[in-house]
């Protein structure tokens, strides 16, 4: 099992550019999450999905979009990148139960200049 994988590891964007952060899990988990982590801060939830075809907003969804066409993949789309989106992005997944453990990917470090 590779677990949760994320690509790319690093990316620099110019203001106004767009990109997609990829996230894939091979554990057949139903729930998937996108968080962002700003320096010195905890993780904030951007979007989540409870299964293929079902997504919903988290605490900080503005400027992002997601889709979940398969169980394995949960890409995060940034449209019109802004400096405020400079952050480290983590994807996570878990099976389904309330007490199931969330497993995290290694993160994508994004800088918007």
């Amino acid at each position, binding site marked *: 099992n590779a677990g949760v994988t994320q690509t790319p590891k690093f990316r620099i964007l110019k203001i106004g550019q767009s990109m997609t952060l990829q996230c894939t899990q091979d554990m057949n988990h139903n729930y998937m999450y996108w968080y962002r982590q700003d320096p010195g801060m*905890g993780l904030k939830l951007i979007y989540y999905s409870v299964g293929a075809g079902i997504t919903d907003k988290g605490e900080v969804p503005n400027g992002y979009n997601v889709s979940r066409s398969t169980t394995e993949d949960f890409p995060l789309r940034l449209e019109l990148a802004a400096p405020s989106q400079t952050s480290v992005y983590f994807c996570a997944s878990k099976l389904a139960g309330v007490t199931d453990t969330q497993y995290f990917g290694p993160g994508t470090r994004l800088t918007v200049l």
Partner: protein
Amino acid sequence: SQELEQSPQSLIVQEGKNLTINCTSSKTLYGLYWYKQKYGEGLIFLMMLQKGGEEKSHEKITAKLDEKKQQSSLHITASQPSHAGIYLCGADGRNGGSQGNLIFGKGTKLSVKP
């Protein structure tokens, strides 16, 4: 909304010393997770606590959830350089009607001097 406060924010200890990190919640904890993060890496799951009074240990790390279920502590015995990193506590966000996401504290940065 629920908030988690971790203390201390940072900690420098001599190798071999014991240390404790605290995580206090503004609301009842239904599930408390401890993760460790190293720079440039994802979050590594350490332990999960659910019941008040519960205590779990793995190698030299022990986590406890207090009886009133609003605070957890992480204790490291005989610290080693490999323990260095950022420790994050995360709470089951069901207080906010969530779908299983975690609410995180800001983290405690631990440095261990050889």
